[in-house]
């Protein structure tokens, strides 16, 4: 079994919060929607590469590509991100789709969390930092969020 397969198998059975999914319905065409990326890759602006171990988030100015990986976990490939941020953080692809008129616009800021929380709980993200990030996105009139992990 490959390393990735072993990890996938190991985390598949982890406890998960029971939340009934709801769907927000877009009230306008995608070509008029404002889109943001929220990644759990643990990216941070360059110069801020201390290890990240909690449920907080950071804003990533949408034009900023000088970003660093601060994720604590050694368990995934990092060389891909070293070569091309878009392999986990498709900011250039989003800019291109906006220029082509596929989406309406790109958010002022994207957001980064650190995935695979070490304490195994979700309360901070569910009750504090998740709603705070949602409000910041709404304040920027974002309609659509694309979520990317590592």
């Amino acid at each position, binding site marked *: 079994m490959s*390393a*990735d397969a*072993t*990890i*996938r198998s190991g*985390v*598949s059975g982890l406890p*998960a919060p029971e*939340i009934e*999914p*709801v*769907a927000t*319905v877009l009230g306008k065409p*995608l070509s008029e929607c404002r889109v943001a990326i*929220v990644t759990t890759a643990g990216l941070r602006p*360059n110069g801020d*590469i201390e*290890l990240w171990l909690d449920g907080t988030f950071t804003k990533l100015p949408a034009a900023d590509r000088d970003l*660093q*990986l601060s994720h604590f*976990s*050694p*368990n*995934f*490939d*990092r*060389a*891909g*991100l*070293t*070569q*091309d941020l*878009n*392999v*986990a953080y*498709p900011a250039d*692809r989003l800019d*291109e*789709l906006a220029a082509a008129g*596929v989406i309406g616009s790109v958010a002022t800021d994207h957001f980064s*969390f650190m*995935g695979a929380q070490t304490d195994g709980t*979700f309360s901070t*993200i*569910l009750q504090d930092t*998740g*709603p705070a*990030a*949602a*409000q910041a*996105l*709404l304040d920027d009139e974002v*309609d*659509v*969020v*694309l*979520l*990317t*992990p*590592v």
Partner: protein
Amino acid sequence: MSVLSHVFEQAGLATVGISIVRGQAESVRPPRSLYCEFPLGRPLGKPNDPAFQTDVVMAMLALLDRTDVPVLEDYPEIIEEQGSEASSCPLPPRHDPSLPAPIDELRGLRNAYERNLEATGGRTLVGRVAPVDELDTVIEKFIQVEAGTPLADVGWDEVSIIAASQDLRAFYEEAGLQLADNTGARQLLTWFYEATETGRLLVRVRDVLKAGREHKLAAMYVVPGTQESPA
């Protein structure tokens, strides 16, 4: 990731996420997910392939119209990691026998690291606990920990030894990008931990930490959990 989808949808934002672990998406049930069986760490599949990445993003956006949540669709292409075959990076010959082998090796890879630094416009993951010029000292501390010196006595705690291990891995992987063409998912990781003196040192330190039972966090994260100990 999937939990955030719930929070955002409840706040009135439409979301679609990439899932990299299908079983996790099935249990957390985010509203809309595209399962991408790509190497972990590469959720858009292929670095430096804009067309492929755009296709993945378009597949995500196509799910936004779906209200029959939870939606969990599979991206039609699977990409396997290649960690069973290490990158074929040439290692420098022993230059200064008076130095510990990992330090001699690290110094021999410095030019390749600098070339990668230039290629990326100065972007590097080295520097969490020490700048590149001080990585010799980081290796010396790992050698001390392997010999049984307590973490506190080398000035580290559980988080800083993990960070230090990531500095060394970043140095080697960034140098390795300039030394081999076969740098697919996990290939540089395999090369570092199995072929280099410094990577093997980190694995031995992991085993020392694990045997000591005192630093469980460090023992878990100082090298990848799937990295086997040398026979």
